[in-house]
């Protein structure tokens, strides 16, 4: 192990972590904003609303994110009219292409998570709300969504961690993220073990920080579904909260 080479490269890794977190944050926020309406539509009883969303998530979840990124970065740039369009300043940026691919990808997965969580809301709660005379919108905003969003937390924490790892793909389209820093160190020092081990350690640190954040969030907003403490009468739902890493 060549620790000097690692220490020398640490500033590069720090910049890489910044880029990785930025990619992650922007695509998660944009993806979530897209996923909420998509997920509600996906859970809708009306096939004209749910089918198109199903098509979208089917296509995105059925193809690797790397292929999607290549299509956006290299594929779209092949067409002259794209290069002459007003969108080119955006699409010519590797960073933007990466964020676009990640956003479309996470939106599809998150929409399925949201739809699944909405279906998991006990129907009795919806019936009760109906019998109280709530409108469809009221049922959605007062009963379904608050419950579904809480239930979706454990599954969504997995998605966030998968996305963190997924951002490593940005390095193949020249973005200098954490993996890009490792590749750069590898190409300068010819020490692949040290280079990628350092990147691995950084990713692990980020992963466990995110896991910690979600544990805190679950403790705060999912208490009502946790098994009852200090009691033999365990009637609560046991949630598998450990994220799949």
């Amino acid at each position, binding site marked *: 192990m060549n620790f000097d080479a690692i220490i020398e490269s640490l500033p590069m890794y720090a910049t890489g972590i910044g880029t990785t977190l930025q990619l992650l944050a922007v695509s998660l926020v944009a993806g979530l904003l897209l996923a909420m309406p998509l997920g509600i539509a996906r859970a809708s009883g009306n096939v004209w609303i749910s089918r198109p969303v199903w098509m979208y998530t089917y296509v995105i979840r059925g193809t690797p994110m790397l292929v999607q990124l290549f299509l956006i970065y*290299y594929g779209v*740039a*092949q067409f002259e009219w794209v*290069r002459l369009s007003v969108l*080119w300043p955006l699409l*010519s940026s*590797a960073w933007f292409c990466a964020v676009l691919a990640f956003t479309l990808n996470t939106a599809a997965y998150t929409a399925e998570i949201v739809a699944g969580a909405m279906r998991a809301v006990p129907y009795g709660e919806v019936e009760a709300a109906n019998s109280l005379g709530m409108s469809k919108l009221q049922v959605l905003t007062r009963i379904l969504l608050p419950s579904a969003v809480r239930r979706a937390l454990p599954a969504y924490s997995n998605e966030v961690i998968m996305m963190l790892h997924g951002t490593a793909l940005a390095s*193949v389209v*020249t973005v200098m993220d954490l993996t890009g820093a490792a*590749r*750069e160190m*590898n*190409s*300068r020092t*010819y*020490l*692949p073990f040290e280079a990628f081990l350092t990147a691995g350690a950084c990713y692990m640190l980020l992963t466990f920080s995110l896991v910690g954040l979600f544990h805190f969030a679950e403790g705060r907003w999912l208490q009502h579904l946790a098994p009852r403490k200090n009691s033999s009468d365990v009637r609560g739902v046991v949630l598998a909260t450990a994220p799949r890493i």
Partner: protein
Amino acid sequence: MNVFLRGLIVAASVVLFGGPAAFANAQAKKVRLGVEGAYPPFSEIDKGGQLKGFDIDIANALCAQMKVECVFVQLAFDGMIPALNSRKIDAVVASMSITDERKKAVEFTDKYYKTPARFVVKQGSTLEATAAGLKGKRVGVQRSTIHDRFVGENFKSADIVRYTKQDEVFLDLASGRVDAAVLDMIAAQVGFLKTPQGKNFHFVGPVYDDPKYFGYGAGIALRKGDNSLREDFNKAIAAIRANGIYKKIQDVYFDFDVYGAAAATAAAAVTNAAAKK
């Protein structure tokens, strides 16, 4: 345990643990050569999926001369030296320039060719190949190459964009994502300028061949201490130079002497070739 399952476990353990090592021992004469396959005209994949190019022909000629069986292993350029040092391959025949920096990590044979480097930009571009002219400009290079180092150390004000493969640089140069590229003149000429993709592009600025960055020509990289293999390669290079096989191969690809090519001669030859096309 049934026979099939046992067979499967044996096969899996051979693949997992003993595979490469057992193979290398059983066939000591096999030399594994790392080649790139994405660097025309030196190394590329033809339509039938076969490797071809100057590097490949030279490698085949050297192996025939040395009377050893060679196996080509296709790798990304930035993975060559790590693969060599972790014994996944035994030699690198990938247009790798002999530089003092690389000599710290690996050993080299004598050179087998030498060509200079230059900037490529779009026709009509006002970009100047100076520190001031490149300030904030996006310059595409292949990662881990001499060109990567050269731009990194001489044009720190430029925004260097690093790619794994040379053809990715060409794609982004053509689409305008990078303002310029620095690369080997022959690779630029054959791989880009002569193709439809590069028809509106041309060379600018001086011809570069400073040994400090560009080394002493392309050689075959070997692991440190692998002296007998290096001696064999050196003798084979000298032999094919002497017996005319080198000349025969180089004439297929180049209409000038790619072995000695002083920067100016090569540059003139490339420019003439460009004028002809």
